[in-house]
């Protein structure tokens, strides 16, 4: 079997596997729904996820250890992942193939020629990783002036450098030594005058462009909901995602660009491909030419996926191991071997020292500039309610890769990708919307934290979420607090009985309780006429027939005892029928002015009990701007946001 066929089989296998994992991330009881399927496995395999979180948190969380497998194979083979595993890469591959089909050979070769802009992806990678390493860098700088181990290392390094300078060394090495010496000196100097850790912080933004999170959120939040709106297999009702158009637009643009240049995203943008290109720098096996003399028929370049120029000097870090050149060559020139290409090879990206330093500087500077908005501190946005178990905001943003797995898995569809609510940094991070979806955050559900690949939402147990058992001391996880809008609430503002919010409050004892009041209805002051049994005639008003027979209306004599309210059971325009318990003397008040009153139960939120689950907001019959709304005040993930003592 030809190697390209094997590659295609691998691509189909992994693409189908990926789509399968997207499909089975559905809530339900069937074998093809959530049954321990490793739905985030491609994210675990992604070395950029592992490296990003390693830089921001100093830890490699659980299944991210899988990334080591990818790294090991990449170090030995190069960017095999791009052409053999990556589901996004396979999509590009297919669309790029379709776009090229029927074009003349020369045009195909032209499309696959190396372009200097392919180094842009390395710049993007450096920017993203620098933004993620701000906190570590600042700590290194601070540690440089502490009398601890780093200082000793610094001393050793300085002595070593001094030796290199005064000892025998080439001019190049001397220059290098001088540069390093100056760098370390500057490092110690800055560390001694400024506490940079107050300014420079880390933010994990790799997920914006990392192809694995990108393809996960595109498929899960755009393609599947679209497909399922006709099939209705994956969920009982249409899944919605705020801002899905933007995710979809990025996805479609990335896919359509293949028609312009095959594998446009992989060649120019993909930071994961860039990382793998660097990791595979010393790949032992690689594509290359056997002899320097080659007929230059460029058959091999017609389908070269990486634009790595196998006919010329091979660009090792651009080669995605599609193996098309190996198959296409009719002169037995191309091999996959331990030898470097006879045509020569270039194994480092075309970025240059200036490009590198510029990208690093902009990545490091971007985070403190973005945080000037104050979203991490006093100016935090209370409309952004994070899922249960979400870490405090700064820690959360140093882990969230915007993959959308929590949004996909949420059975009630309340987790949505954020727009600019928490600034540019928070784009596509999860936030709750209690109007969309089928309910609030379910009391007995912890799915989002279980599926989160980086523990930005940490995995909760049910007892921790509910604050029971061994977690009784710390209380339940609170997402925020429900606030009543008295101007919109029916019993508060409009004399209408309601309390749907109170009934649906899932906390026990309920966080919403009611206070009973009786209000005289509009035009409800009437004079009693003659009575007949328990039916009384009213004078001076024409009533709306049937209106007061709902069980919520009472007749009250002002000045009488509070308890002397008699329930109205029916009414015509001139009569009121009262409950049979009416005392006889009550019915003999002919000529007395009485009040028709409505019994209202006005909801009240108990701040010590409310967990901010949003069920009340979801159920509120004021369907536009709800009369009870949850905002993130008092959320338990950060002490600084507690509202109560």
């Amino acid at each position, binding site marked *: 079997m030809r190697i390209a066929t094997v590659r295609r089989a691998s691509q189909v296998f992994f693409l189908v596997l990926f789509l399968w994992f997207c499909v089975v991330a559905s809530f339900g009881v069937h074998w093809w729904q959530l049954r321990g399927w490793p739905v985030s496995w491609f994210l675990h395999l992604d070395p950029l996820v*592992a490296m990003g979180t390693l830089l921001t948190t100093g830890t*490699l969380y659980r299944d991210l250890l899988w990334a080591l497998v990818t790294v090991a194979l990449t170090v030995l083979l190069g960017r095999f992942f791009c052409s053999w595993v990556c589901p996004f890469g396979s999509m590009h591959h297919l669309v790029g193939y379709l776009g090229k089909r029927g074009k003349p050979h020369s045009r195909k070769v032209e499309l696959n020629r190396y372009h200097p802009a392919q180094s842009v992806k390395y710049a993007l990678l450096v920017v993203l990783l620098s933004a993620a390493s701000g906190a570590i860098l600042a700590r290194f700088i601070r540690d440089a002036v502490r009398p601890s181990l780093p200082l000793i290392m610094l001393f050793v390094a300085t002595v070593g450098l001094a030796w290199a300078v005064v000892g025998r060394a080439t001019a190049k090495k001397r220059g290098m030594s001088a540069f390093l010496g100056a760098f370390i000196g500057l490092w110690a100097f800055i560390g001694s005058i400024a506490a940079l850790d107050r300014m420079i912080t880390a933010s994990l933004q790799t997920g914006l462009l990392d192809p694995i999170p990108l393809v996960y959120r595109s498929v899960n939040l755009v393609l599947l909901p679209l497909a399922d709106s006709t099939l209705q297999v994956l969920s009982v009702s249409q899944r919605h995602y705020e801002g899905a158009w933007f995710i979809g637009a990025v996805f479609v643009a990335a896919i359509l660009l293949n028609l312009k240049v095959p594998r446009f995203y992989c060649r120019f943008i993909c930071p994961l491909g860039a990382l793998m290109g660097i990791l595979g*720098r010393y790949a032992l096996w690689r594509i290359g030419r056997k002899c320097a003399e080659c007929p230059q028929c460029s058959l091999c370049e017609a389908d070269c996926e990486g634009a790595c120029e196998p006919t010329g000097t091979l660009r090792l870090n651009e080669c995605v191991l599609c193996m098309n050149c190996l198959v296409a060559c009719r002169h037995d020139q191309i091999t996959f071997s331990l030898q470097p290409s006879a045509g020569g090879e270039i194994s480092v990206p075309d970025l240059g020292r200036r490009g590198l330093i510029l990208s690093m500087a902009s990545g490091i500077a971007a985070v403190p500039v973005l945080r000037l908005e104050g979203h991490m501190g006093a100016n935090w946005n209370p409309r952004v309610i994070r899922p249960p178990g979400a870490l405090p905001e700064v820690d959360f943003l140093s882990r969230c890769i915007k993959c959308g797995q929590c949004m996909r898995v949420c059975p009630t569809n309340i987790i949505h990708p954020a727009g600019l609510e928490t600034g540019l940094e928070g784009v596509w991070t999860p936030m709750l919307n209690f109007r969309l979806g089928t309910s609030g955050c379910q009391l007995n559900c912890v799915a989002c934290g279980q599926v989160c690949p980086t523990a930005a939402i940490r995995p909760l147990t049910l007892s921790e979420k509910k604050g029971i058992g061994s977690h009784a001391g710390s209380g339940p996880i609170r997402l925020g607090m429900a606030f009543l809008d008295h101007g919109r609430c029916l019993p508060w503002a409009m004399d209408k009985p309601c309390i749907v919010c109170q009934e649906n409050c899932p906390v026990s004892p309920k966080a919403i309780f009611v206070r009973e009041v009786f209000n005289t209805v509009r035009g409800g002051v009437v004079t009693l006429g003659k009575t007949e049994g328990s039916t009384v005639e009213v004078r001076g008003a024409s009533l709306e027939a049937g209106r007061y027979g709902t069980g919520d209306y009472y007749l009250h004599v002002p000045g009488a005892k509070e308890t002397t309210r008699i329930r109205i059971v029916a009414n015509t325009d001139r009569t009121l029928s009262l409950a049979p318990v009416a005392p006889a003397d009550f019915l003999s008040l002919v000529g007395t002015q009485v009040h028709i009153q409505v019994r209202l139960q006005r909801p009240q939120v108990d701040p010590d009990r409310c967990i901010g689950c949003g069920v009340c907001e979801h159920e509120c019959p004021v369907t536009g701007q709800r009369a009870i709304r949850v905002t993130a005040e008092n959320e338990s993930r950060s002490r600084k946001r507690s509202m109560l003592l």
Partner: protein
Amino acid sequence: MNDYPLNRVWSRREFVVRSAKAGAILAASGLLGYGFYDSIGPGPDESPDKSSVLLPDFSIPAAGRKMAIATGDNRVQTINLALKALGGVESFIRKGDRVLVKVNAAFATPAIVSATTNPELLKELIRLCYSAGASSVVVTDNPINDPGSCFALTGIGEAARSGGARLILPREGFFRETTVPGAAHLVRWPLLYEPFHGINKLIGVAPVKDHHRSGASMTMKNWYGLLGGRRNIFHQDIHNLIKELAMMVKPTLVVLDGTTTMMTNGPTGGSLSDLKQTNVMIVSTDQVAADALGATLLGRSLHDLPFIAMAEAAGAGSCDLETIRLERVSS
């Protein structure tokens, strides 16, 4: 550049070197993965500030419980009289002492509305400290209004400068977490700690003011200005909080200025009609006793001000005026 030129056969040495480099990357990734592997993930707590602090005890045990009440409308005279009655400032401030004066600079209002520590009183107090041989005097507060404006408009800043004291305005980096032993509210709470650096004597200087939530703002409530963070949530349990403040701070002396008392519209005041001339200056080693006496200037009983009994029960002092050494002097 590690590029390979055209048409060259690779030596064994080159292959070995390349394999070693690839192996080194493999080993490094493996080590990183092993070293930083985290099977549990983050816990529920925000990482606590490891540099938690406790305020030291600034009281002088030998001085015992004593209080002086000087009557008169001239603060410079009454503070001198009161201190003299307690054995002179020298019995509290020794040569070489580094003194922190915690003023009440809460609002950006002029001194005449008496919402803040009187600048003349402050200046005289600083002079007295230096005359007793203090090597340095520091003045600080974390006011409610903008700090710069508060210290400028109240005249406290100018008084401190002209008196030769160092003025420390609060800054973000000046706060450290503190947990007051036995406290329910002051747990891992940011405390304005930087001004205490090197300090061995602490004097609190506060005016007597009406306070709508707690009933009165006097010497114990004055320590509120040492707190940072979102301290406004403490108003949900103000009396216990004032008790905890009294537990947190053990001052050398407190000065309660009742020359003019803010009777209404506290604690901001804003009008001269809120004020009443009461002509009393209280200096005490017992903050509970000083506040108990101050309550009478406001015409309030101890029952109106639950924090006083709470602070007494917590051992921060006593409002028993029978057992304290009480000196009454007048100008």
